[in-house]
């Protein structure tokens, strides 16, 4: 009886303000601590895909470890220093970095629901990625033509496995990119399409990070010794 009396005597505006500050304090206390109720689907999807990407990077680390162990095992055949052309690697790196940047522009355009810029930026992303892939395939073809195919030595097996695995990821990414462009065109900026795009952009940026490791540990270190 007493408490209801007090509640009645409180001015209405003060009561509302108190409830509001309490909600804000709850929200702030919950940041990054998993509290505050179920999170949005976009964040769950993005986080799940982030976990997948990290597992993909762990898989790549096994290929890197294999290459690091076998990089000296040329079996009397051509060595890294004789095979690699750093000029080609520089152009490949430039292509992939600019492609990643274009993908960032596309992300900004998707956030602002601008279809024209989205499609143009995605086209640029795809063309640069395709250029990278063509340069890599030309390098592989040249090596195989000179008798330095994956069956020549343990070094070359591990090289083709590691760099080829990255190339396969880029190929898959290009197919995904084409699908995204078609889906934006046909279905527009629907929430599920935008979530798919978020995953694609994460995938594409992660591939660039793996390429940084490849050009450093395979090409630069390889031509050094």
């Amino acid at each position, binding site marked *: 009886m007493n408490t209801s009396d007090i509640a009645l005597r409180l001015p209405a505006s003060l009561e509302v303000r108190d409830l*509001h500050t309490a909600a*804000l304090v709850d929200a*702030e206390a919950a940041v990054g601590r998993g509290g*505050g109720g179920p999170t949005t689907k976009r964040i769950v999807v993005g986080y799940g895909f*982030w976990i997948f990407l990290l597992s993909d990077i762990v898989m790549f*680390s096994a290929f890197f470890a294999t290459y690091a162990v076998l990089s000296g095992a040329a079996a009397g055949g051509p060595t890294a220093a004789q095979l690699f052309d750093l000029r080609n690697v520089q152009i490949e790196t430039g292509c992939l970095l600019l492609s990643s940047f274009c993908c960032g522009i596309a992300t*900004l355009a998707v956030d602002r629901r601008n279809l024209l810029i989205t499609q143009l930026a995605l086209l640029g992303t795809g063309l640069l990625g395709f250029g990278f892939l063509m340069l890599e395939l030309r390098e592989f073809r040249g090596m195989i033509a000179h008798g330095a195919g994956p069956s020549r030595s343990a070094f070359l097996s591990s090289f083709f496995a590691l760099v080829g695995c990255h190339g396969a990821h880029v190929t898959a990414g290009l197919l995904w990119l084409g699908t995204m462009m078609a889906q934006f065109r046909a279905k527009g900026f629907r929430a599920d399409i935008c979530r798919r795009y978020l995953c694609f952009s*994460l995938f594409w940026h992660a591939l660039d990070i793996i390429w940084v490791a490849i050009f*450093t540990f395979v090409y630069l270190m390889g031509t050094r010794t």
Partner: protein
Amino acid sequence: MNATTISPAQSATGDLAPGQSGEGPQGFGAGLKSYLIGLALATGLTIASFWAADTHLIYGPGVPIAFVTLAVAQMGIHLVFFLHITTAPDNTNNVLALAFGMLIVFLVVTGSLWIMANLNHMSMPMDQLMRMQP
């Protein structure tokens, strides 16, 4: 209402997905600036890496260390400016997952190198092994 406004990209928990910038609604220019800074820094670090391979200014045995440092720096640039992984509290989940991933990568790579180098050291050289064949 003046304390914090939760942007539409954020959830009720205030967490952020990787790849989302936490600035909330902002102009196209502000977002573009972040990507441009990332592109400029990554380009600079790439050029520095290839320069380190060519130059004689760096003490020879130190060059691989320069490579590793530049590569790690560039990966960090990619993570911050392209993937928008930050140290803000709304990114705690993403950073923890990344840290765990890096731990596994470290264990796989150094563990493999260590074990294989050790086996190499312990095993008989190939020419001696050949001589023992009947």
